[in-house]
């Protein structure tokens, strides 16, 4: 409605302008006029579209609500990172303290450690956790026996359905000084020790157990991408004399490359988001040095030590870095191979 009003105003304006014969700005005016018409058309199109497909749009409503309620509305609470929040005073009435919480974090004894661990675990996960399902999917794709393939696939993605608490219990039992891993070490002439007491071993244990748990589940999307590759391409490659390996290199991998890139970008966005649950279930004071990450630190400081503002500041800092990483990786990907999220 207001578009029409705007349009009429403009037309009137134009007429009066013509009459006064002041044509200095007529060029820009022309452009603005066209843009306004274009805009009103777009609005009208959207309106018509809404009318036509209102049921389809209404199906998107719950998702929209979900994001507004659980992701955008809570952003308001992030302002306590710049305050000294106490629940009695509430979010708004707590006093502003500027960047004090942030500087306190940067100057903290634990800052370097927490950043380093978060970064290293992310990089290890990217290096080992990301390619593992791709390799697994490629290997599975080469298996011709349907039953064998099905069985392997089922067994491999079972661990995904085990609750994290149970998985961590398993990991603890396996790495115990009487656990199965130590039994194997002793068999080969080593000495037994509690593996989770060794700071150097925490990251490998964390990353490898993650690979074990998620490899099958992660492979599903690649298997779907693989099945979408046109079989004619394989036939053509065969006629050209390509063996199994060459087919993989020249047909299969290019075929799933867009999927891989998109998933990689999305993964970069979550790069420093190392979840706290598994860390907290696995760590102990002896290995804080290599296991404390940003999220577990936020949990500890905020929810166990009541330091709400400080922990919000740490969390916000983490999110900002994630955001920058996401934009950066998207840009790089667009430059390198024209595939990007936006």
């Amino acid at each position: 409605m207001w578009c029409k009003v705007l349009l009429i105003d403009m037309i009137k304006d134009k007429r009066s302008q013509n009459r006064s014969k002041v044509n200095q700005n007529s060029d820009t005016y022309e452009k603005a006029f066209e843009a306004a018409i274009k805009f009103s058309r777009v609005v009208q199109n959207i309106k018509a579209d809404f009318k036509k497909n209102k049921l389809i749009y209404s199906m998107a409503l719950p998702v929209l609500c979900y994001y507004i309620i659980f992701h955008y509305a809570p952003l308001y609470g992030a302002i306590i990172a710049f305050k000294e929040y106490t629940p009695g005073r509430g979010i708004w009435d707590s006093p502003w303290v500027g960047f004090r919480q942030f500087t306190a974090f940067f100057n903290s004894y634990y800052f370097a450690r927490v950043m380093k661990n978060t970064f290293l675990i992310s990089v290890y996960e990217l290096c080992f956790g990301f390619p593992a399902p791709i390799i697994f999917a490629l290997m599975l794709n080469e298996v011709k026996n349907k039953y064998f393939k099905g069985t392997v696939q089922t067994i491999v993605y079972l661990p995904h359905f085990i609750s994290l608490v149970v998985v961590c219990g398993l990991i603890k039992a396996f790495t115990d000084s009487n656990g199965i891993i130590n039994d194997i070490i002793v068999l080969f002439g080593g000495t037994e020790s509690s593996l989770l007491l060794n700071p150097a071993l925490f990251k490998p244990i964390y990353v490898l157990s993650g690979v074990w748990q998620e490899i099958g589940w992660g492979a599903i999307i690649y298997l779907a991408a693989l099945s979408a590759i046109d079989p004619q391409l394989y036939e053509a490659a065969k006629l050209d004399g390509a063996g199994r390996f060459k087919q993989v290199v020249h047909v299969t991998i290019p075929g799933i490359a867009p999927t891989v890139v998109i998933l990689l970008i999305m993964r970069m966005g979550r790069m420093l988001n190392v979840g706290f649950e598994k860390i907290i279930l696995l760590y102990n004071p002896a290995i804080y040095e290599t296991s404390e990450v940003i999220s577990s630190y936020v949990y500890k400081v905020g929810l166990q030590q009541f330091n709400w503002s400080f922990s919000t500041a740490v969390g916000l800092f983490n999110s900002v870095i994630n955001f920058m990483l996401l934009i950066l990786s998207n840009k790089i990907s667009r430059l390198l191979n024209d595939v990007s999220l936006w």
Partner: protein
Amino acid sequence: MKGKIRRRIITIVCITLISALFVSCNNERNGSNGDPNKELSVWCTLYADIALMYFNYAEMPLYKELEKKTGIKIKFQHPAAGQQSEQFNLLVASGDLPDIIANDWLGYPGGPERAMTDKVIIPLNDLIENHAPNLKKFISENKEYDKMIKTDSGNYYVFPFIRGDEFLYTYRGIIIRKDWLDEEGLDIPSTISEWHNALTAFKKARPDISPLTFSSFAGAVAATSAFLGAFGTGDGFYIQDGKVVYGALEPGYEKFVRLMRTWYEEGLIDKDFATNDSNALNSKMLSSRAGSTIAQAGSGLGRYLDYAKQENISLDFVGCPYPVLTKGQKPEFGHRMSSYEGIGSYAITVKCADKELAAKWCDYGYGAEGHMLYNFGIEGVSYNLEDGYPRYTDLILKNPEGLSVSQALNGYARSLSNGPFVQDKRYFEQYMAHEQQKEAINRWSNTNAAAHALPPVTYTEEESLKFSKIMNDINTFKDEMLIKFVIGMEPISNYSNFVKQLHIFNIEEAISVVQGAVDRYDKR
């Protein structure tokens, strides 16, 4: 046209249903504050043993009886087990408070005074004066409790859980396999060198086991100062010659760390001691994979002895006196709780609509009837009076359904956990069913720990902010370093660096804050 009407009807029905949902949610919320039915909402921990039988305290016979006696219906809200402190924080942060909250208010960041300025709980001075006759009488007769349950500025803040007798203060200490000692022909060890002998003998006889094990090592040492006390040092803040000191800065602490390191190297301490949780610990103790540990009289020693009896296996534990350096010395440190620790204490929140009613409900436990109900349960069911002595029935002591004493007792009374009442010594006398338990308590309580204990001090808001910032860093750091020293990740020669780092964290400031609070407490 018809379709349009039908569609409109469907829309209207949908909207009504959705709004009905919201309305019913709102109603529920109103109900908890509503006074016409004399109803109150209480937030408190559901203890694991009780959770075995009841999902909610309201189902417990004790609380049904309490409702009959007081005419007040209680709606209990329980946090998920093991997440009390997190959920308490969320509860406070949400501002959606119930009428009454049971918690450790001394542990509230900033202390009880801060909880009042945060507008979480209210000062109880007027309520106790006018509406809590039982508690008023109790604290006027026992001035030392009066001092404990108020802040420096004189505000009462809780209906406290109070241990009514010295006999109830000590229940944690070191236990050792008596049958293994007998095998080796050794006496119960009482000095560090005797301990070394005994543990080495255990290791020699059974190379596969761990002679000494722990679960949550730092916590166990903090609570009991076992082995540490031999070097004339306690853990955390304590009082030495009238001054507040911090254990890890004292020379004895380094000696203790050195001792633990040597024992660990010699294989006398469990290799997994830092990762054991309580389940792992119990299974090690019961399957003869460990010879000694720090345990509680009831849930540790008592449970192990019960198990041995039930399964008919030869497994015998005794409690050992806290070790010293020279034989015959009286241990300086050991486990000793004080009569009021802060835990399980009931405070009334600012959101409570009928504060007098809440005070009345909380006050009931300090009267004669409430005392018996909370401590012993229901007469004729869970206890009988024999010559004035409330004796638990076989329902508790020899439960027909095979429940352990602690489980059965937890189902009928709160004496084993906590609540707004004074804990009765007579519960403990019966709960310690095994001779070994009574013996252990006697040995464990024979220390000078009372002379070193901090009173239940409170801090000002500013002090507590400073204190918690310093101590949060220090506690994490200390736990980590302690274990690293013991397992050899960090050479003991770096102990001086450890102390230096404590100074960088500003431990002096924390000590002076505690000292100031103790001085104010003494002046109350």
